[in-house]
């Protein structure tokens, strides 16, 4: 739809009165504001001493969830690796052990390069069995690049650590595989 002349509203700057034109009252107003802030409560968080309280949907380090039996929930469907825009997830699938009746495959290795990851959370969105989740762990450091490449054991240990500490309870379908996990054909 074309813009007509009547659609354009020309706004003029408001006329300043005598009080405004004296300029000093406005300055005093400004000084009142700044002085008020000078003595108001400070909002600084003294980080190392004072830890931030993070919202539960904070996107920090990943973890691989365990099911009730303590096995990795992942079914190696590659959906997270496909969804990942940074290509930081590397999975090698293998046939699930025969005693695992609820799934066909499991990840033999599951590696996330935490340095490549952009922490967008799309892997968590994509996962059909709620096996991968992002935790509120944010203070992640390493002495080398290799240390920042997390393998399956490390990711599972993040799960143990965060659930034990109670900072990140398992968010969805605790301990159960999602509907998308099919049992292997008999």
């Amino acid at each position: 739809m074309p813009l007509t002349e009547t659609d354009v509203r020309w706004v003029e700057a408001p006329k300043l009165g005598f009080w405004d034109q004296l300029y000093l009252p406005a300055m005093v107003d400004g000084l009142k504001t700044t002085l008020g802030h000078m003595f108001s409560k400070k909002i600084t968080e003294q980080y190392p001493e004072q830890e931030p309280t993070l919202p539960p949907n904070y996107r920090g380090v990943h973890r691989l969830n365990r099911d009730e039996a303590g096995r990795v929930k992942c079914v190696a469907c590659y959906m997270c690796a496909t969804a990942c825009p940074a290509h930081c997830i590397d999975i090698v699938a293998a046939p699930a052990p025969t005693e695992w009746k609820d799934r066909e495959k499991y990840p033999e290795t599951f590696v996330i390069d935490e340095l490549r990851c952009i922490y967008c959370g799309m892997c968590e969105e994509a996962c059909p069995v709620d096996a991968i989740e992002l935790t509120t762990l944010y203070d992640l450091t390493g002495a080398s690049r290799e240390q920042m490449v997390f393998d399956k054991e490390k990711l599972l240990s993040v799960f143990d650590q965060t659930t034990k500490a109670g900072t990140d309870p398992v968010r969805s379908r605790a301990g159960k595989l999602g509907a998308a996990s099919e049992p292997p054909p008999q």
Partner: protein
Amino acid sequence: MPQFDLVTALILIVAVMGGGLGLVAYLTLGERKVSAWIQDRVGPNRVGPFGLLQPLADGGKFFLKEEVIPAHVDRIFYVLAPAVGVITALLALAVVPVGGATPPPDPAPTVAAFDQAQADYRSKLNLVIAPGIDVGVLYVFALGSLAVYGVILAGWSANNKYSLLGAMRSSAQIISYEIPLGMAVLGVFLIVGSLNLERIAAWQETHTWWLVFFQPLAALLFMISAYAEGSRLPFDLPEAEQELVGGFHTEYSSMKLGLLLMTEFIHLITAGFMMSILFLGGWSLFGLENVSADPTVTAVLKAGILLTKMFLYCVFALIVRWTIPRFRFDQLMNLAWKVMIPLGLANVVCVVVALQFGAPLWVLTAASAGLFLVAGCIAVRAAGSITNPKRAVRKLPPGMPVGVTYAGR
């Protein structure tokens, strides 16, 4: 010309230099702290208790940083500029009384009377490096305008467009604001009858009421011009971090940058001293400075009062910095030439007329208030066109006749 003691002068030089530079260091911390408090933050608090050792860490960092002299600069002037800036800034402190001082004796009719006056003068404590300089304020202003050389040399020799832009702005700004600065103190000279800083302070001590009560408009003009002279916000166009990187000191690094940054704070301290002595009564506080009969206590009291006034001025400047946004360059020039210089001139005329007809000094207070209100009325009548000239607004896109519609973007 009074004689003075060389040893006292040397001790004072060391004290003023050390104290002044120490205060500069702590003003940098103060600036960061005040800005933090105003922005609801805490500010530097990790180095030492409450961050009090932060200036030492900053200074040490300046010394340890790599000194980079770019290949494209004019080396001689590039190296000279920070020195010129700091030296001219520091020299201004030579005539400023940093505590109580006695005005120099008047010329005596006989040699005996002269010697008597000199001996009497020498027996008093004078906390001035160079006491009895009768051109006192002129000397400070002269050095204040020399300060622009530091900025221009830095900006031009750096061979960088941002530096040059900053230096150009600075030269125009400092030269423009010299005039209202001089106009503002002219009234003070006329009332006191001397340019000597000790005399001006002593006049206010004997009259109890400070000159700010008789010359409030001049005090305001002086303060605004002093901010502009020292390139303090809201007049920090020579630096203008957001648009000119660092302005005239863009190409500087290490301690040369430190010196250029220090210069600004030395100017602030000088302005604080000048404001306190010229308008805020110097070392007098409505007779409180003379409560003790002991001369030592009195000297300490006077120095304390003067330094407190100077310090409060500096703190006020820090708060103003974080309150008022920077002026645009045309607004800056309009403020100087169309508002402050006419007001200053009118103020001088008022003082001359009042003194000529022997009117009481309180008339000048009323005259200042009247001038201020008249200026406000003129500003209302001009509807902002003085400091903020209107440009013609085309109400249609160019080349588009009336009635023709144009597609929205």
